[in-house]
């Protein structure tokens, strides 16, 4: 068939041209045309002729859809199990008794020594045929010898393994009569301590393997059985690695050359990085998580790339925060168990327990009521982590944050002031703000509140003012803000609503003044209890705060406001994220002593309080107070902080401390406000 040998590129080009020309001709002219055109090149002529014949023949394969063609192939792939070995079949020195189960890697049988060397029945794992390639066979045997050294009460012993005469790789393991650890805990109705005790056994067995340089790599409940007398037996040690050569199981995802189960796999394992003992520590943490919380850390995880990515990108909630737990369990997990589980499951292997032994010891400490070694991530750590993700703020930001620290409720004011400065707003606005600022007791403590008339007359002046929409909106926001600050909420609202109305009518969607208007009205309605509406307004404000158009602190201020509304609505997760992001920015630009951080510390503390994490809340409030006092500020915000701390102490029934804090807060308010301001009434 020399005629089918490849053509050089010149002849191929001629072939293409001749094929197309000839196929356009009436059939009876083709032969003569080719005879003439090929100029004696018979090979070429034969090629073209055959292609023209093929051209007219039906070609069901190529004309169809490839998947139609592949359908039977895929169908069979998905369904066909390995043919089962029947009772009496011989595999190596073993005789199959009956089927125990099927897994992604192969089939497990109950089997016995065929030569009667011993009575003991074994679990015979027969790997899917074709799963092991010739080259891997020697390695398989070598690894088997290493695994056979693992002798520990919590590890199912490997008795034998190899490749039988029929080419089937197999492993004979100690036959364990038990239930998967999670199932065992459920059916026995184990309490928290008993579950933790099981995890200790798991960690000890794993530690033994690690000392023998064997990493499990695929720990999960179905590999951790518990026998009737309550002893843990770990199955399939090192098998993931034995079979990693050529496996593609259903329940597993292939990543690099690893077999793993995404729900329990450490991030570095999923990413295909070097596998160390730390992946087993992670998996024990994940199993303990499931034992405690009754669900997997990330819920159900499929094998697709996107599902796995989700696991990599998100932090699971602490066990105590899992939905649907009853209060007693929540309380039992809070603190030490949450901390231990999350430490074992740190995404960064360096931050996990250094060994399975260390994890076992900490769990034992918990059981004995001793202080555990694990610590929750410190604020400093979490901040620095956030800070690394955020860009450092500019020098201008720092200057503006100084101003920010002066105010309390007036974040819209600050945002607007920052923007005024940035855009060199006209003298009218500057004049007015400076005048009214003196009437704010939260800005200058001790001075009497006498500014209502001033505000009213200013409002009249604004109405008559011939100015651009931006300036008008700014002024209305300022006035509305100040009415509110002075406690005249009934006056603030119409002014702020008018500001929003004018902004929506005459300013672009991305105009900072429009964002400020939303922000200010949002704060007002939030204060009078329309929290849901305030949330909408703050989201509108954020949407208007284009990255280019608004300063970083304006965005931060709006985020803080939104966080506050979310907190009031009980949406604590998003609130906490926002507060932390804002604080990270403040820390990045101003450091931890910046007064700008106080309101966010206060807010985050209240989020934690809502979540009943009282000790954390107290720490946050204490930090807020420290910053205030270091700056020598004795104002309404300080009173808020002290009051909030008192509330938490009250919740913990530390009544004396609570009482003292409440009185301290009250004395500040009374000193600040003569009468008539709603802060004192509340």
């Amino acid at each position, binding site marked *: 068939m020399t005629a089918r040998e490849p053509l050089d590129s010149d002849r191929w080009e001629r072939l293409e041209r001749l094929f197309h020309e000839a196929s356009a001709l009436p059939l009876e002219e083709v032969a003569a045309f080719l005879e003439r055109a090929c100029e004696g090149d018979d090979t070429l002529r034969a090629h073209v002729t055959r*292609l023209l014949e093929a051209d007219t023949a039906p070609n069901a394969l190529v004309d169809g859809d*490839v998947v139609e063609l592949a359908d039977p*192939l*895929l169908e069979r792939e998905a369904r066909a199990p390995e043919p089962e070995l029947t009772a009496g079949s011989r595999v190596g020195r073993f005789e199959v008794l009956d089927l125990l189960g099927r897994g992604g890697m192969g089939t497990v049988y109950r089997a016995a020594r065929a030569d009667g060397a011993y009575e003991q029945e074994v679990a015979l794992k027969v790997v899917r045929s074709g799963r092991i390639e010739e080259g891997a066979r020697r390695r398989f045997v070598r690894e088997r010898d290493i695994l056979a050294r693992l002798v520990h009460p919590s590890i199912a012993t490997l008795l034998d393994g190899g490749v039988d005469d029929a080419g089937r790789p197999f492993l004979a393991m100690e036959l364990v009569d038990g239930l998967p650890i999670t199932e065992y805990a459920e059916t026995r109705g184990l309490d928290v301590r008993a579950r933790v005790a099981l995890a200790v056994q798991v960690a000890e067995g794993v530690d033994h393997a690690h000392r023998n340089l064997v990493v499990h790599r695929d720990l999960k409940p179905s590999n951790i059985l518990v026998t009737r007398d309550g002893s843990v037996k770990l199955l399939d040690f090192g098998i993931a690695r034995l079979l990693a050569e050529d496996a593609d199981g259903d329940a597993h995802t292939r990543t690099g050359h690893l077999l793993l189960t995404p729900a329990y796999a450490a991030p570095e394992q999923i990413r295909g990085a070097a596998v160390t003992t730390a992946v087993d520590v992670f998996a024990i943490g994940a199993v303990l998580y499931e034992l405690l919380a009754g669900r997997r850390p990330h819920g159900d995880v499929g094998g697709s790339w996107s599902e796995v*990515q989700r696991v990599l990108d998100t932090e699971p909630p602490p066990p105590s925060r899992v939905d649907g737990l009853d209060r007693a369990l929540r309380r039992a997990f809070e603190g030490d168990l949450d901390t231990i589980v999350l430490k074992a499951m740190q995404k960064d292997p360096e931050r996990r327990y250094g060994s399975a032994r260390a994890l076992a010891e900490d769990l034992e400490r918990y059981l004995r009521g001793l202080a555990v070694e694990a610590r929750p991530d410190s604020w400093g750590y979490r901040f620095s982590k956030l800070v690394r993700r955020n860009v450092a703020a500019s020098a201008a930001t720092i200057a503006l944050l100084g101003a920010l620290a002066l105010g309390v409720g007036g974040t819209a004011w600050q945002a607007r002031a920052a923007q005024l400065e940035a855009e060199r707003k006209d003298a009218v606005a500057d004049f007015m703000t400076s005048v009214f600022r003196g009437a704010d007791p939260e800005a200058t403590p001790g001075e009497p509140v006498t500014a209502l008339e001033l505000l009213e007359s200013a409002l009249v002046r604004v109405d008559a003012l011939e100015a651009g929409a931006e300036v008008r909106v700014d002024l209305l926001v300022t006035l509305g803000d100040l009415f509110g600050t002075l406690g005249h909420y009934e006056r603030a609202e119409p002014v702020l609503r008018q500001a929003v109305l004018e902004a929506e009518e005459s300013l672009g969607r991305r105009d900072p003044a429009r964002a400020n208007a939303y922000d200010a009205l949002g704060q007002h309605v939030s204060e009078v209890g329309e929290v849901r509406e305030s949330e909408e307004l703050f989201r509108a404000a954020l949407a208007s705060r284009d990255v280019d158009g608004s300063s970083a602190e304006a965005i931060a201020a709006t985020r803080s406001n939104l966080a506050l509304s979310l907190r009031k609505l009980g949406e604590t997760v998003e609130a906490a994220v926002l507060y932390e992001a804002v604080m990270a920015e403040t820390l990045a630009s101003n450091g931890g002593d910046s007064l700008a951080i106080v309101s966010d510390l206060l807010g985050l503390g209240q989020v934690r309080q809502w979540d009943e994490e009282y000790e954390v809340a107290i720490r946050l409030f204490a930090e807020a107070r420290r910053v205030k006092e270091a700056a020598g500020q004795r104002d309404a915000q300080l009173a808020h902080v002290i009051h909030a701390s008192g509330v938490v102490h009250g919740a913990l029934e530390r009544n004396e401390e609570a009482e003292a804090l409440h009185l301290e807060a009250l004395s500040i308010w009374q000193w600040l406000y003569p009468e008539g301001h709603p802060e004192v009434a509340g």
Partner: protein
Amino acid sequence: MAGQSSGEADGAITQQVALLLDGVRDGDAAALDQLFALVYGELKARAHLQRSSSPTLGTTALVHEVYLKLAGSSRDWNDRAHFMRVAARAMRQILIDRARRRTAHKRGGGAAVVTLEEMAVAAESPEGAAETLMALDDALLRLGRQSERLAHVVELRFFGGLSVEETAEALGVSDRTVKRDWRLARAFLHDAMDAPDD
């Protein structure tokens, strides 16, 4: 997870795919490898899923779905062209890998299927389908040695399920060229598979 957000792009992935596509456009081979691996994985996961849920599955639907999922709908057509080429190649690879696994232990048994007609009949059994696919792959390799463009056309149309117009777009040639190429390629494959010798 099967029914969830099937047509919607996932932010993080889309971002990564966008970066990879930029790399591919700049001729970065590593980016191409990575993109291929990614598309391969996603296609495979989907093919598997759909296999168990619905009996019929069009390549077109599959490839486009994966495109939406990984690249989102906003990328320009230049990227789309790159992506489709990678996806078609990945689809081909997936099917050939499966076929190879299925026939691996039968190799050397001398049970070669000879003619195209026999193949078409045999294709109804898994082993036959596997053999046929591999014969097709062989033929396509040979075609590629003669004309890379023709092989691309086959890959995009047959394995990628693209229409003539989409194929033209992906290769940056006219519709007419694609039609002509397809006709010649089809004849070539038919001829090559009818007598699969070298």
